[in-house]
């Protein structure tokens, strides 16, 4: 791919050479890469929403295929609307939809405005953080199918979510956490305000009544902080103890409760030290860390999203010879379905009629299509590439193979990562020693001087309170997570940052990571006196009946026209048909040339694949008529423009790259050479990839795997750090630790650097905390530190740790080296 190729006005991807499609935007002709993008760009500006192109900060998703007109009509049926939506006052209905391709605030603005323009829409709220929109409309004025169609027309594919409770739960969880955080923060500020005069009053002499008064007020303010804001910690600790394990929540709860109860006791009896300042500060900072972690977790997307995107919402049911579009949840075992070419199975079933091929890569990782004959099983979520199939449903919804996999993933996601578990064990060990030590100190002082025993014991407890120690890691990780999120890197599991810093090897699944993962018409070369866009349109007409992967490249690039007539598919060679009165062929060079020179062999109408040009690398496809060749199309899966720099920068950081691909070795070699990667493996099955990964890990390597497809899921799950691309499959994202939201590799080297800086900060923090504790412990045990000084010391050591961590969110903030190609352009419009 030439780096100087003009970017598409809408999606920013390079425009195939020789192709001149323009979208009429604000009175100007802007170049676009395909008719899908043309339709979207013209629809957006035609609706008066051209500001979208000024506001957005990343390019839009490529509009892949022209919308099928009947896709949304299933949603017009009243019983579906009934089931899918909720009743609102005054006869209105509301629905929540997941918007695929919603990537920035401008996208949500676009969705909002496009829907608000429709009459009958009462309310729209779009949340860019969760990519969800809630719309309320008047069913008497507008139909749901029309609203969903509008969303697809602006390039945001909607997935209606039927009464999804988990999203609502997540929202409530966030709000509750925010409230607890506010209580802890406000309370901490107040208590600190009283703590300062109390500390100084201790030294300079203070009116005892005022002192009592301030201690009482401190207690009053601390009660909601300790009991309400700290509640999740106690809950977590209780769950852990009931499960006979020890989580971080256990020492945290013990620390909070011990200090709090001791302080309350001392306040009520009128003398002795109070530690309300330490308690509230502890709760606030720990809550802050947990909050940031939770936001990252929610953002990373739930498995429910993945399922919503994989499984279709509608299916075509055949009943008494009549086919009707129904919602997938209406299906029951025993129903008969008609699954047409290119459609996704809505349920598991057995083939009744038809012979064809099904793409099961999302389940098995096998990228070649599986032949299906009557009697064989098909699975929900897989793709029918071949002839239409009639299927008898055997399992629906929660019982399908797909939902089994999703349930597995969900469980894996819920499990605490192993590093966090190790940290918990260390903290529990540390706390155990502290408690034993404190008891020992109390016993010795009781023997020496009973009046000082409690003060000294508390000083030991407070001074060694694993505050700084427990803050050292979470604060640094929280700061790093926030800094990365600003650059478009989502951390799904926070311990991934620690592992990334130690990484030694990179494994790339070539397709979709180093390359864009889409076969595209890269170049159109006219071989006769035919305009290139006309040739492309003919090619698309011919390819409309074909199910070959390459045909999809043409469908995306060409202008939507009617299919060719009299079409014959020649397996392994190409397609022949009549377009606009001309007999044309598309396919291999020899096949196309035959039409011009000699009689063609009888077309085999058997709907089977052409197996030849399935290489996702580079290939040429020819178009010709009875008078010879007309045009040649170069098809490639283009390399990402930033891939080479990214590989070089990562190598400079000590991370050598290696390609593990299922592709042909020639295609892999070509990409490897362009990226400067020496080690590569081609024609690897997902199991081979995993074996290569295990081999590296057995040698002690810490491996980062980067993938985008569902067939990469095993590799991603096995890797020490899994990175998924923002536009990759939703299932790949759920097994990823890091997600590159902007679908660009350029942030990857900076991410590794930040991970290493984070690791350094964590080490500094831990070293400081341990040093402080070691120095203070003997002094406290000897009774040389009064508890109030211990509290100041502990607070200060925590502040040092937090400030050190905050350096990560400030500091070097390298701007992305290349802006998105299409983003800045329309400023002049």
């Amino acid at each position, binding site marked *: 791919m030439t780096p100087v190729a003009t970017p598409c006005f809408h999606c920013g991807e390079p425009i195939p050479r020789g192709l001149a499609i323009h979208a*009429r935007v604000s009175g100007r002709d802007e170049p676009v890469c395909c008719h899908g993008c043309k339709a979207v760009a013209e629809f957006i500006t035609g*609706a008066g929403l051209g500001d979208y192109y000024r506001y957005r900060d990343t390019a839009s998703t490529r509009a892949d295929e022209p919308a099928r007109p009947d896709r949304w009509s299933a949603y017009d049926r009243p019983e579906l609307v009934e089931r899918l939506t909720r009743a609102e006052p005054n006869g209105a209905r509301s629905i929540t939809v997941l918007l695929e391709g919603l990537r920035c*605030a401008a996208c949500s*603005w676009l969705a*909002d405005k496009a829907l608000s323009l429709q009459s009958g829409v009462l309310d729209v709220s779009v949340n*860019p953080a969760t990519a969800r929109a809630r719309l309320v409309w008047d069913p008497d004025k507008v139909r749901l199918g029309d609203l969903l169609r509008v969303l697809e027309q602006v390039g945001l594919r909607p997935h209606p979510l039927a009464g999804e409770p988990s999203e609502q739960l997540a929202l409530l969880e*966030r*709000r509750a956490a925010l409230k607890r955080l506010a209580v802890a923060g406000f309370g901490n500020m107040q208590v600190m305000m009283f703590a300062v005069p109390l500390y100084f009053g201790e030294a300079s002499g203070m009116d005892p009544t005022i002192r009592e*008064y*301030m201690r009482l007020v401190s207690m009053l303010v601390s009660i909601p902080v300790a009991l309400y804001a700290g509640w999740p910690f106690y809950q977590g600790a209780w769950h852990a103890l009931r499960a006979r394990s020890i989580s971080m929540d256990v020492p945290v709860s013990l620390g909070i409760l011990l200090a709090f109860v001791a302080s309350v006791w001392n306040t009520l009896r009128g003398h002795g030290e109070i530690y309300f300042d330490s308690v509230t500060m502890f709760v606030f900072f720990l809550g802050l860390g947990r909050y940031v972690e939770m936001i990252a977790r929610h953002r990373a997307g739930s498995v429910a999203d993945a399922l919503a995107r994989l499984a279709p919402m509608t299916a075509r049911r055949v009943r008494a010879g009549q086919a009707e579009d129904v919602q997938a949840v209406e299906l029951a075992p025993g129903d008969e379905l008609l699954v047409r070419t290119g459609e996704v199975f809505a349920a598991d079933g057995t083939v009744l009629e038809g012979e064809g091929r099904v793409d099961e890569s999302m389940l098995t990782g096998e990228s070649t299509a599986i032949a299906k004959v009557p009697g064989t099983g098909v699975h929900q979520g897989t793709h029918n590439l071949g002839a239409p199939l009639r299927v008898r449903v055997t399992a629906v919804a929660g019982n399908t193979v797909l939902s089994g996999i999703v349930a597995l993933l969900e469980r894996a996601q819920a499990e605490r990562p192993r590093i966090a578990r190790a940290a918990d064990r260390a903290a529990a060990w540390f706390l155990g020693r502290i408690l034993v030590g404190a008891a020992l100190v109390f016993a010795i002082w009781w023997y020496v001087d009973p009046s000082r025993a409690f003060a000294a014991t508390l000083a030991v407890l407070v001074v060694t309170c694993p505050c700084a120690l427990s803050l050292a890691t979470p604060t640094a990780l929280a700061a790093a997570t926030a800094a990365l999120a600003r650059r478009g890197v989502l951390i799904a599991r926070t311990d991934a940052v620690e592992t990334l810093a130690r990484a030694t090897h990179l494994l790339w699944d070539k397709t979709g990571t180093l390359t864009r993962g889409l076969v595209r018409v890269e170049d159109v070369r006219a071989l006769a006196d035919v305009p290139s866009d006309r040739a492309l349109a003919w090619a698309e007409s011919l390819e409309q009946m074909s199910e070959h992967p390459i045909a999809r490249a043409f469908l995306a690039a060409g202008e939507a026209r009617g299919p060719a007539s009299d079409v014959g598919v020649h397996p392994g060679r190409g397609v022949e048909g009549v377009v606009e009165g001309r007999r044309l062929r598309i396919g291999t060079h020899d096949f196309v040339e035959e039409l011009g020179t000699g009689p063609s062999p009888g077309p085999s109408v058997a709907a089977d694949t052409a197996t030849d040009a399935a290489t996702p690398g580079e290939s040429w496809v020819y178009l010709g008529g009875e008078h010879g060749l007309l045009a040649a199309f170069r098809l490639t899966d283009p390399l990402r423009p930033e891939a080479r720099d990214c590989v070089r920068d990562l190598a400079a950081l000590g991370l050598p790259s290696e390609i593990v691909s299922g592709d042909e070795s020639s295609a892999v070699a070509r990409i490897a050479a362009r990226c400067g990667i020496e080690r590569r493996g081609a024609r690897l099955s997902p199991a081979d990839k995993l074996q290569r990964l295990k081999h590296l890990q057995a040698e002690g390597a810490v491996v980062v795997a980067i993938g985008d497809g569902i067939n990469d899921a095993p590799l991603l799950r096995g890797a020490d750090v899994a990175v998924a691309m923002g536009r990759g499959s939703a299932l790949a994202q759920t097994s990823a630790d890091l997600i590159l939201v902007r679908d660009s590799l350029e942030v990857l080297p900076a991410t590794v650097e930040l991970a290493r800086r984070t690791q350094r900060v964590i080490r500094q923090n831990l070293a400081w905390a341990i040093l402080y504790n070691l120095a203070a412990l003997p002094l406290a045990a000897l009774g040389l530190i009064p508890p109030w000084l211990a509290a100041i010391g502990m607070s200060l050591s925590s502040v040092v740790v937090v400030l050190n961590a905050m350096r990560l969110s400030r500091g070097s903030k390298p701007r992305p080296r290349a802006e998105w190609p299409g983003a800045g352009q329309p400023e002049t419009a």
Partner: protein
Amino acid sequence: MSILYVLIPLGLVLVAFGLWAFFWAAGDGQFDDLDSPGWSVLDDDRRPGPDPSPKPDDPA
């Protein structure tokens, strides 16, 4: 120093009021989306109409 007996409760009342306001805002969804409302400033008050620039083949 007896003024403290008035000022501190007053301060606590203010804090309680602030917390109440925060709880109300959180429950009302004010913190659910911190990104997109910023864009609404750039938006004209009128509902978006047809593109103002010349566009002969505008279907809208």
